[in-house]
């Protein structure tokens, strides 16, 4: 048995290690601050393990190369930051429509445009939710420490395989460059989900035929199947079917396969919600600052609960609505001008006031600023 390993590494390295433990064997990317260490580490480690690392000419090419490799049977990822993510957006839609399992890591920096290359932001949250044209349901996770960069990266890969969607791993510059202890469990204790391979022989296999869970099984190039994969609206055989009926069936299904499993996709770390007067909803690096603010409020005798969203998309609206029934107000700090707060407001539907605590990025909030909003919400 391999012994448990403890290392002192930055989030970017922990993220890359998580990907390797999850079984990633193909990486394509184009380096960009503050995410470069992820690519660097993959370039060192993948070839040693029989995997492939390609530095592509740009992010557009990277985002399509990983999808080719996924259909060749590999677990795949790319990494970037805001400017690169914008370039990848077209192919995010392709991954969603062709149901190609892949992981996009976004180490967020201040934006828009070139913005603040070496400083943090959380302003790509809505971009990953809605950024590619057309309708689809992506999954996104937000780690707040190097340990979570490792643990949740494995989860990100697993979710990509289970639901066959593009999964976004929403880091930020602070989490990426922050160094802390990371415990790596023995490999056999790590739960890794393998691809949903079809057991049907060539001739009988239909690429987009689904069972009850609405997720189709896959085959890979080289195994003797003749299949067609297209970004056009397609039927169960994978062939273009450009009519409203086929389109309705397909678009509805790629939403339903996530929405039907919404409860399984809730991952919230809750602290002191029972009996709380005020709830704070946060994610990623901001959750650590929010936790400090919650502690300050508790020292003043306030009952404050904290919901830390691990999975931000699909948004856990039902749980937020439940919490809204028992509190006076909800406070949502984030390193953007108010993005995830829009989903909180939608879920709360006017039951109680929702207090946004926006921040343009470049650093994290002062805990005192969040504290002030908590006090306001409690009044």
């Amino acid at each position, binding site marked *: 048995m391999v012994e448990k390993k*403890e*290392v*002192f590494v*930055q989030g970017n390295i922990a993220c890359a290690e998580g990907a390797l433990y999850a079984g990633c064997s193909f990486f394509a990317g184009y380096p960009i601050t503050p995410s470069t260490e992820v690519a660097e580490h993959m370039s060192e480690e993948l070839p040693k393990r029989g995997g492939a690392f390609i530095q592509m000419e740009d992010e557009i090419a990277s985002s399509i190369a990983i999808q080719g490799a996924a259909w060749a049977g590999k677990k795949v990822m790319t990494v970037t930051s805001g400017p690169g993510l914008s370039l990848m957006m077209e192919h995010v839609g392709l991954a969603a429509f062709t149901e190609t399992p892949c992981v996009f890591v976004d180490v967020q920096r201040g934006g828009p445009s070139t913005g603040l290359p*070496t400083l943090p932001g959380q302003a790509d949250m809505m971009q990953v939710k809605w950024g590619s044209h057309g309708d689809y349901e992506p999954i996104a996770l937000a780690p707040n420490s190097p340990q979570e960069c490792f643990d949740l990266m494995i989860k990100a890969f697993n979710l990509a395989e289970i639901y066959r969607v593009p999964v976004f791993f929403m880091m930020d510059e*602070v989490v990426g*460059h*922050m*160094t*802390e*202890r990371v415990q790596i469990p023995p490999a056999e204790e790590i739960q890794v989900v393998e691809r949903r391979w079809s057991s049907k022989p060539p001739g009988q296999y239909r690429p987009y035929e689904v069972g009850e869970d609405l997720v189709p099984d896959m085959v890979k190039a080289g195994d003797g199947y003749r299949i067609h994969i297209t970004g056009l609206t397609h039927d169960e055989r994978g062939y273009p079917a450009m009519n409203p009926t086929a389109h309705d069936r397909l678009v509805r299904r790629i939403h339903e396969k996530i929405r039907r499993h919404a409860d399984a996709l809730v991952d919230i770390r809750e602290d002191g919600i029972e009996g709380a007067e005020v709830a704070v909803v946060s994610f990623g*690096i901001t959750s*650590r*600052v929010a*936790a*400090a603010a919650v*502690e300050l409020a508790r020292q003043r005798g306030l009952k404050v609960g904290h919901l830390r969203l691990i999975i931000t998309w699909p948004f856990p609206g039902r749980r937020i609505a439940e919490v809204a029934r028992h509190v006076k107000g909800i406070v949502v700090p984030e390193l953007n001008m108010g993005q995830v707060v829009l989903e909180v407001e939608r879920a709360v539907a006017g039951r109680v006031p929702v207090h946004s605590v926006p921040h343009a990025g470049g*650093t*994290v909030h002062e*805990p005192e600023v969040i504290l002030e909003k908590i006090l306001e919400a409690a009044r």
Partner: protein
Amino acid sequence: MPKTEIRVGGLGGQGVILCGHIIGKAAAIYDNKHATLIQSFGPEARGSACSAQVSLADEPIGYPYVKRPDVLIVMSPDAYSQFAPTLKPGGILLYESELVSLDEKLPEGVTAYGIPATRLAEELGRRLVLNIVMVGFFVGTTALVSAEAAERAVVHSVPKGTEQLNQRAFRKGLEFGLNLTGQGNGGPRHDA
């Protein structure tokens, strides 16, 4: 141990980040405490201002940045001018005494310990190990991490083949610090 904040400042190429990394690693891996290291650097690498922020605590660390350090380690005059005013009153300044001279920027009640780390490193044979001399000095003066943990962290963080040199550098700084604070074999400080 309550949360203790440390800032290491100097120039790119002096090993500032590694100095912070080793302190954090000693605490987090070998002393079984919690440590968070944040590094910041200018757009250029060598020769530009560079600093590491390390928080140490018994409990997990929330807010990641260091704003008012309890301990400031400086290896360049610029780092001193920039960060000395941020030291907590009653905090500790550790400085490279042949590169940095103290002035009125130092907040009240700060205890300052100097060490000619570059010269000591040169005497050991390589100027490069000045950052490891500083790690030893930090441990000798503050005892915030154990000497055993720090030495293990040094050995496991430096390039292969340089372990012994770095170990000597660490011990040199440690001894200098212990002597300065009256805990070393060199005799108590108040006797000096």
